[in-house]
């Protein structure tokens, strides 16, 4: 360094002084505090409790599967059958009618599994991921029907951890998806042959007519016997997504044929005037909630398959976007999303989504709102943002009244909906509401000392069919957004559809 002259030293000193002044000026501005986020500890507590107490160590085989219902006080399998949360059918629970709930249903717990992968990333602890991997691997390799290769999960089946068998037993078991399965890539990593077998089983034993794509959402689990019947669009989307991943992982052209068959079926179902698709074959009603779900899966599948099929899938989704966005969704008063209407006129027979009244076969406003989030985050059509913010606004001052046996899932969706509105508008009111809804959810579902959330506002037990996992995922999403953490990305809370 050059030797400094006296004048230089003086100049240097003045510069240092000026620099220190700048330091001082910077220090004068009060630092904003780190925003509080009490949500993650609650989620860790839930996950830790499930890892420690909620896995199958009963019966002849300790499978490690997560139980989908538990005694929240004793943190052990339920010895009885508590009353079902409002809107839940007895036949959909993880216990045969009149028997205790002692089942594992990975589809009910799908967001719990996704949550565990996220917690491993957040914490750096592999235990959460290992537990999820164990469940997937064991279930795929051990639980499938040897005849159909379908899995005892979803809407009507489960693995009974006490007797270690799929239930209901032969010949009653019916395979039906409960949600789209977003974990296929991980499944193919862990158990590629079993995953491929299931995907082929879905084609051969769920679809009644490969030529027309006719199917029924219910298919016999134990033996071959698919029928042509209740071909709900939502389920078609779940199958298409499954086969798209299967094709991308195996390159077995059978899966492209399967996708093409179902896509053609639903392309052909559009009403010539309105473009609406029937609820099931022969129905005069269109359910746009279900076809929007199909659109999400078609667009998702398009990323995994070659042209020209990919473009056809995208075109299908695009058409659904146009139809759904053109409907008169109105959130004033008791309004909500239009979910079903007359197929031919697109006017009569309109039903709209409720804010809080969740039930089997229904869709709340927040639930449909999250489907709009799925489409906006991927297709970015501005109309969806209008719908997202309008739906989020509908929850502005709303909490379920005491007569409603609200589900954790609905709170989870309402929180994630507010967060989506916040992400896309930067209006702080949405973040404030997300926090308020999270606080209200915690007060309702974690009201006592149990680490596990209750199945509903009026339930005392744990049962994931009502979306405890979805609520936990929403709380993680909220935490990440409050603290601006992006190195770990929360899975989209858009699979309850």
């Amino acid at each position, binding site marked *: 360094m050059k030797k400094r002259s006296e004048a230089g030293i003086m100049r240097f000193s003045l510069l240092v002084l000026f*620099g220190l002044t700048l*330091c001082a000026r910077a220090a004068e*501005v009060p*630092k904003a505090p780190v925003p509080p986020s009490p949500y993650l500890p609650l989620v860790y507590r839930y996950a830790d409790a499930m890892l420690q107490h909620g896995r199958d160590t009963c019966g002849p085989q300790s499978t490690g599967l997560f139980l989908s219902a538990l005694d929240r006080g004793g943190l052990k399998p339920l010895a009885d059958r508590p009353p079902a949360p409002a809107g839940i059918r007895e036949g959909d629970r993880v216990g045969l009618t009149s028997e205790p709930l002692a089942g594992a249903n990975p589809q009910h717990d799908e967001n719990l599994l996704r949550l565990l992968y996220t917690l491993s990333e957040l914490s750096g602890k592999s235990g959460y991921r290992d537990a999820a991997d164990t469940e997937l691997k064991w279930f795929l390799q051990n639980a499938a029907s040897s005849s159909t290769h379908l899995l005892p999960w979803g809407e009507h089946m489960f693995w009974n951890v006490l007797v270690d068998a799929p239930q209901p037993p032969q010949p009653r078991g019916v395979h039906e998806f409960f949600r789209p399965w977003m974990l296929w890539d991980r499944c193919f990593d862990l158990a590629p042959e079993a995953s491929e077998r299931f995907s082929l089983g879905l084609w051969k034993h769920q679809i009644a007519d490969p030529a027309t794509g006719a199917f029924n959402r219910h298919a016999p689990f134990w033996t071959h016997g698919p029928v042509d019947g209740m071909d709900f669009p939502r389920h078609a989307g779940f199958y298409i997504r499954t086969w798209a991943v299967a094709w991308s992982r195996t390159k077995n052209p059978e899966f492209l044929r399967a996708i093409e068959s179902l896509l053609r079926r639903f392309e052909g179902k559009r009403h010539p005037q309105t473009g609406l698709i029937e609820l099931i074959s022969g129905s005069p009603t269109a359910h746009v909630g279900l076809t929007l779900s199909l659109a999400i899966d078609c667009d998702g599948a398009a990323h995994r398959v070659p042209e020209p099929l990919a473009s056809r899938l995208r075109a299908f989704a695009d058409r659904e976007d146009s139809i759904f966005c053109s409907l008169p969704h109105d959130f004033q008063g008791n309004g909500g999303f239009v979910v079903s209407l007359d197929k031919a006129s697109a006017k009569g027979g309109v039903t709209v989504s409720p804010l809080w009244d969740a039930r089997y076969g229904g869709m709340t406003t927040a639930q449909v709102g999250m489907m709009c989030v799925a489409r906006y985050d991927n297709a970015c059509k501005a109309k969806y943002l209008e719908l997202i913010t309008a739906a989020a606004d509908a929850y502005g001052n709303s909490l379920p009244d005491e007569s409603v046996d609200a589900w954790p899932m609905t709170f989870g969706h309402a929180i994630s909906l507010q967060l989506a509105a916040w992400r896309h508008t*930067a209006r702080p009111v949405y973040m404030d509401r997300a926090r308020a809804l999270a606080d209200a959810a915690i007060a309702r579902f974690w009201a006592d000392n149990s680490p596990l959330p209750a199945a509903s506002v009026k339930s005392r037990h744990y049962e994931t069919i009502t979306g405890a996992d979805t609520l936990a995922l929403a709380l993680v999403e909220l935490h990440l*957004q409050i603290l601006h953490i*992006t190195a770990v990305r929360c899975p989209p809370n858009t699979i309850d559809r």
Partner: protein
Amino acid sequence: MTRIRQVAVVWLLLLLDGRPVCCAGGEEPDFLGVVQRYVQTMIEHGRDTYGPQRSGLFLSALDRTSLKPFTVRPTPPGGIRREDRPGRPWSAMNGANPQIDQNLLRICYVLTDITGDPHYAKAADEELTWFLNHAQSAATGLLAWGEHMAWDVVLDQPIAGGNDAEHEFARPWMLWDRCFQLAPGASERFARGLWEHQIADQKTGAFDRHAPYFAHGPRDGKDFPRHGAFYIGTWGYAWKHTQDETFLRAIEVILARFERKRIQKDGARIATLGPLDLEIAARMVPEPLAARLRAFGASEDELIAPEIKKQMAAGAVPQWRNAYSAGTLASQAMFCVGRLEQIDNPSYREILLSIADAYVGSRPEEDIDTWPLSFAQAISCELAAWRLTRRPVYLDQARRLAQGAVELFWQDGPLPRASMQTGHYETITGADSLALALLEAHMALRGLKITIPSNTIDR
């Protein structure tokens, strides 16, 4: 301002401009129009007129609806760290960071070239002049820019995104020639400050990419080669404009450091500084240093090309998902483009075309919070492949990607969104690079000859 008034401002802007951003009926958008409106909006609404000093700096984040600075800290785009954003921790983002707006400034100059209207270049000149003359630490000569610092336009002071005010380059700075024209003294002070206050040991060249901004205190630590190359580039310009041999010595010291570091303990060689900034410097400095820089760069080529091919074969690089310190496949293509603009190299040509092929028909994966930068580099990659081969498939894909990017990021507004899953304007994710790519597409699609700056600085 009420929400209704905020919306009215945007609509007024649309009406005054007289045309929507996107054409109806799926027609090809007017890419030049999109960029002009973006820049014009920034000039009218996105410059610092706040606080005691109206610096005229471009804000690096804005509310796209009100076209005003934020009163909150919007949600970060996926993969962006909170301490890298243009605002104080947990506070409203009111920062101007010329390094993350660098391609916006370069666009201003090009728009003046294209349109003949000097007001674009004037805005960029005003930013550079003001920033160099006011945002420099009196103690270190370093500037309040880069990875962790910005100028707060409301408080009118240098700010850090994290707890410490650390100087770190975010990108190579390609505007030194203009800076030395506009503010020669300040530019030289910065270059000297980089040598005296970023480099911890002027014999060994030890440094840390982070150096205290407010007071002397360089450390020997994370001497990422990428940063060493940015320094060499800076000193090359400084030598060119001052002929002060200090800058040659600085280059020599850092070069020597990485000549040593290239050889591993087991004798294996690894790539370090990369060739791009070395070639830039080599064109300005005298021999024998220039030859030494070029020789080093040539050796880097031998190491880098096989490494990229290896990564591509392993499928290790994502096509669309961007994040802090994790680029996409197209970013590797843009490195090749940068190098091919300097030398002929069949390996880089092969890699570039292979990556361009991979993006034909490609679109972001499901649920990815894609950045404008991902599109920018994919578009520029396709255009580079087209320039090399004249195969229409590349130009068509560039057009499709550009059109898609306008629909996804601009939607019906004059400013692009920070990412697909956020709604605000924030340049850290490469809105400026995307606009540059749109200009490049405009020129290619219309066969125009005006030179667009190379979209290769996001590295």
